[in-house]
Structures are given as structure tokens and as C-alpha cells.
């Protein structure tokens, strides 16, 4: 997959470009939207949703890379690399990195 370094993207592009979860840095925040989970298997998508990782939520990366740990509200979930690399999220520039 092609990854555009964020420095090359304009503000507008940053809003629309999705990157896989595995490429977020520690502490970075990102949005999950209606298309983020479509590449996952049905069972995994349902489980993630029920765990609280649903479309239109904001997540924070607690441990970056693969596998990674993300936090949504009060829930922390560990995802193995094969799932995390299929979840495409929109990094929030507005959200300060922790």
C-alpha cells in the first residue's frame, strides 16, 4: 500500500487520508469512520464494535506498531498486526498527542 508521509500532505489531505492503525505513533489520536472497519472479517468487526470500537469513535494509541494497543473511552484493546493493519483510520491533527 502507498503511504504518503504526513509532511507532504496539506491540511485538507490530512483530513481525508486514512492510514492503517499500525502506522500511528504512540499517543497519537485518530478517528474511526464508516469505512475503517469494512476490510475486516464480519466476526472481528462485530466483536470490535461490541467492545466499543465502533464507527465514529476517537481512539488513542497506547502502544504503537504491530501488535498495538488502542484506547477508546475507557476500554483498552490489544490488536494483533493482521487486524491492526486492516483498520484504516483518520489521524486527528486537532487532537494533541498525549
Amino acid at each position, binding site marked *: 500500500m502507498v503511504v504518503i508521509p504526513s509532511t507532504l500532505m496539506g491540511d485538507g489531505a490530512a483530513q481525508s487520508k486514512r492510514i492503517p492503525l499500525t502506522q500511528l505513533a504512540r499517543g497519537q489520536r485518530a478517528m474511526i469512520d464508516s469505512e475503517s472497519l469494512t476490510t475486516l472479517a464480519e466476526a472481528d468487526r*462485530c466483536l470490535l464494535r*461490541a467492545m466499543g470500537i465502533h464507527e465514529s469513535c476517537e481512539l488513542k494509541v*497506547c502502544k504503537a506498531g504491530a*501488535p498495538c*494497543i488502542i484506547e477508546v473511552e*475507557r476500554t483498552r*484493546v*490489544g490488536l494483533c498486526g493482521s*487486524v491492526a493493519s486492516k483498520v484504516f483510520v483518520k489521524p486527528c491533527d486537532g487532537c494533541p498527542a498525549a
Partner: protein
Amino acid sequence: MAAQQPDELEALRVYSTERPPRAALLGQPNTGKTTLFNRLCGSRARTANIPGTTVESRVGLAATTHGVLEIMDLPGIYGLSLEVPESKLCRDCLDGRIGDVAPDVAVIIADATNFSRSLRFASHALRRKMPCVIAITLADDARRKGFSVNAAALSECLGCPVVITSGRTGEGVDELADAALRAALHGISLESFEQRLNHLPASSVSESDLAKWANDVLVEVASGRLAAASSVSDRVDRALTHPVSGLATFILVMSVLFASIFWLAQFPMNGLDFIFGTSGDWLRAVMPEGPLRDLCVDGIIGGVAGTVVFLPQICLLFFLLSLLEDSGYLARAAFAADKFLRRFGLPGQAFVPLLSSHACALPGIMSTRLIPDPKDRLATILVAPFMSCTARLPVYVLLISLLFAGRPWLAGLAFVGCYATGAIAGLLSAFLVRRTLLKGPARPMLLEMPPYRRPSVRIALWVMYDRGVLFIKNAGSMILAICVVMWWLSAYPKVAPSPELLQMRAQTSEVALQANANPEQVQALESAANLLESREQQLGSMAGKLGLIAEPLFHPLGFDHQLTVAVLTSFLAREVFVSTLMIISSTDANDEASLLDRITHNRRSDGTLLFTIPTAASLLVFFTLAMQCLPTLALVRRETQSWKWPLLQFVWMSGLAWSMAWIVRQALLTGGF
């Protein structure tokens, strides 16, 4: 909620069926359901700070001011409609397909420390047409973090009774039981159900609208705000799941765990050994000589002592594992282990079952239910008994002290080696089975990390107590029975003395009667005669005959007929091996010698030492790998619903054990040992 007059309730209760109403605890994993259940029913079901602790439904009785309520604890589920075993079990339970009747009321658990998610879960559960009560759990924890919920306001919002509880402190527990009983007796009418639905978002609502709804409710009914998890736990998480520091922590934790088991437990073990030794001596002194004394001293005390001395180690292992689990560490270790375990075709979730199998394979296999993928789960069940459980400890201790007497460092290494051999054999078997019988893609890991909590020493003490009692009960029933039967088999039928023995006895008395008899010589002759007698008895007894029949199978491993009998009985339960050996070798002349001495100096019929280094080593390898536990096989049959898997497990493990033991023995023999 509408208050009812006690008389009215009483009437309702009388007119309801004879059985007490049943309430089911329904909620997400790790939200304190079992803790609440324990409080309500005064029981001590297993709780731990890791999602998926409860894997079976469990029923208890709770007393309320208005009568008895039956409570059903269920496994935690992320959603009622998911296609995973726990969700299916909960659906079956709610529909009355489990436990003969459907529950009369659902107690929906809402975790106060993760409130918005709990509300979303509740909104789904409330759509079932049955009386519901909402129990807000972990209220004490949330309050400490500056967050509280207004029960009345929430009840208004959701259209059903709400009680604020804490399983730890007992807050609101009686009130909850009352509310549940009331709701159960009252039933639910169509109007009230429709009213409740009006409070909830439509079933077709999108996930984001549902989240918005939950947030609106939260703002309305809660005060304070739960801060996101602290940066400290962020940092700890990072360290614990890091490839290097995570592994280092894991090795450190496990070393401390096992080192403390061996070091700390030796003190109470010496005490127990002393108690059994003295009581055996005392009985021997006070009882008249005869078969009854032999049965009591050799069969009962001797046999049971061989097993019960290991009680402290077992208790300690369960205590420490419980503390670890309750702290939230094990979930991180499982997460970090995922990449490694995947190489062998096992999921990260297999980590906790495999670790607890080091205490006992039974709870280990039970906890595999939290593994979502059926093939992953089956593979884990198949290899779990390879992990060195505490029942193997007595044999390890005995054989290692025999092999490495006076060399504590080597002995320590050998212990580690035994544990490692079991684990490696398990991983390689998993690798094999996932590439042959259980082919298929692995389900990726999605694991919730529970918050770090201060582990509860009280819970750990109870776990330890319960496990200890179970062990003693087992020792007092099955192991005792095996010991008595083994004693009987080895003591009967009484064998008539052979001509050689008679001649030897005659010679002894002749020498003793001589005027210039040398007392040492007399004694030597006498003990030689005693030894011959006991050997003849051993061979002539039923156990001896059995041993002779099966001996050819184990002869290549260097086992004689005695050892063969001990190994055969240990297929019923491993821990009886030392006991059996103690019983069948106790007819030897030197009754006062310690078990270890007795076994070390045990000789074959041809007079050569039984426990040479190659034989002891092959026996050790055999015990490390063999499947010698009937209860485990029975459990595997139950969990897999077929005899195929336990049979496969038995044949594979025992075959592997035999082959590896043979290889080790041949290698040592060739090496000149």
C-alpha cells in the same frame, strides 16, 4: 421504582410456582458479575481481573427479605448477538434451553468505570421481553475516581429499576436482590414492555447514534468524569508488552513465582513430612503386629503422606497465580505472547490456559473456553496436559534428588529442564496438529486489556484454600483408595517361603546358636533372609504378577516389575506414583530408612541397583510427557464432545513419552552411565 407492600409481595410469592424465581446476571466480561454473585449467594466462585474468567453458568441461592431468589451467574459477553460460544450460552440460558427453566428476571450489569459502553450493552439487553433490573457494579472504584451515577435518574431514563452496587464492599447487594425478586414476581406486561422500548433508541439505530444516545444518558444521570486511564498505566503497558522488556519481565515474574514455590514451600513440607513420619512410628509402636498395622502404617499413612506433603507447593502456586491474574498482568502477558504462540498455531489467548495448566490441567482446560476460534481452542486443549502440573512435582522431586544428590545447582537446572521439556513438547505438538488435523487460518487476536487493579489477597487466599481442600479431598478419597488397593495387591496372597529361604533361615539360626557367634554376621544373614522373603512376597503377590505381565512393555525403558506396577497405577493419577512405590517397596528390611534411601537402594531380583542413572532419567522423561490423568481425559471428552480427541491425546502423549524415555536411556547407556 414502584414500591410494593410486603403483603402484596407475599401473596405474589405464594401464588407463583413453587420453585424460587430465577435471576440471570447478564453483562460484559470483567464487570464484576461473579463478585456480585458471590456476595449475593455467599459463595466463592472464581473471579479474576481478566475478561473471560467465568466460562460456565452457575446457580446459587440468595436470601432476600421477601423470600429466596435463585441467581444464575453467566460468562461475560460483549454482545448478545455475537457468534461466539459465550454469547450462545447466554442466549440459550435466556431462552430456557439451559437449566430447565428460563430466568424470570435479567439483572443487567453496568460497569460504572466503563459506563457509556455498559449503557450501549444495556440498551440491547433491555430489548428482550422480560423483567429487567440494572445493577451498576464497581461503584466504589468509580467513586474513588470521582464518578457517580444517580440511580433514580437512570431508572427514569431507561424505564426499569436501577440499583447501585459494589461486590467488593457489599453496597446495594441486598437492595438488588429485593429489586430482582420484586421484578421477577411482578412479571412484565405488554404495556410496560412497550413503555420500556420507548425509552430506548430504535433497534436499527447506527452504532454512532447509539453512542450519542449513551453519551446523552450519561450526561443526564452521572456526575463527575472518569479520566482516561493514567499515563502510568500507559507506561507500564508499554514496558510489559515491549519485545525485550516484556520478555524480561515475564521471565523474572515466572522465575520468582517458581523459585518461591520451591523455596518457601519447603518449610511447611518438612513439617508435614515430620508429622507423618512421627505418626507412622507412633502407630507402629502402639499397634499389635499384623496385617492391620501394615495397612495403617504402610498403606494409609505411608501412601497418603507421599501425596499430601506436596500440599504447600500446590497452595502457593494457586495463591500466586491468582494474585497475578487479579492484577491485570496476565492479560498483558497473553498479548505479548501472541506473536510467539502464533508460530506454533496457538492464539495469544492460549497463554493463560497454558500457564494455569502448570498448576493443574483441569482449570487450564476449562479456561480455554475464552478462546473464540474452535480450532485454536481444540489445539490448546490437546496440548495443555503437556505442561508440568503440580501432580508431577512429587515424581520430579524424587527422581531429581536421586539423580543429582548433593548437587543443588544441577538439580535446579533439571527442574527447569522438566518444565521446559513439557512446554516445548506441547508447543511442537500444537505446531504439528495445526498443520495436519486442525488445518485452517488462525483467528487474529483481539483482546481487551483490563485496567490494573490491586490484587485482592482475600480472593487469592480463598482460591488457595479451595484448591487445597480439593487436593486433600482427592488425596483422602481416590488416592487413599488406590493406596489401600495397592497395598492389598502387593501384600496378598501370602507366599509360602521357598526352599532357599527356609535353608537361609535355618542357617541363620544355626550361626546364632553357635557359642562364638559374631552378632554382626548374624544380623547380616538375617537381613539377607528378610530381603529374600520380601522379594519373594513381591513377586508372588498379585501386584508382582501384574508387574511381570506388563514388564515387557516397559523393560526397554529399564523398569522392573515393581516400577512397572507403580507406573501403571500412576495412569489413574500421577501423584500416586510415589505413594505406590513407597508401598510396594516398604516390605523391604530397612523399614526406618527414608523413602529416598529406600528407593535409591532398591534392587532388582538379580541384585543389581534398580535406579541407575539411565533408568531414573528415562522415568523422569516418561513422567514429564506421558498422559497420566483420568480426570483430564474425562474433561477433554466433555469439552470436545467426542472420544476421538482424548484418545488421540492419550496415545500421542504416552507414545511420545515412551519413545523419548527410550531415546534418553539409550543415549545415557551409550554414553557409559
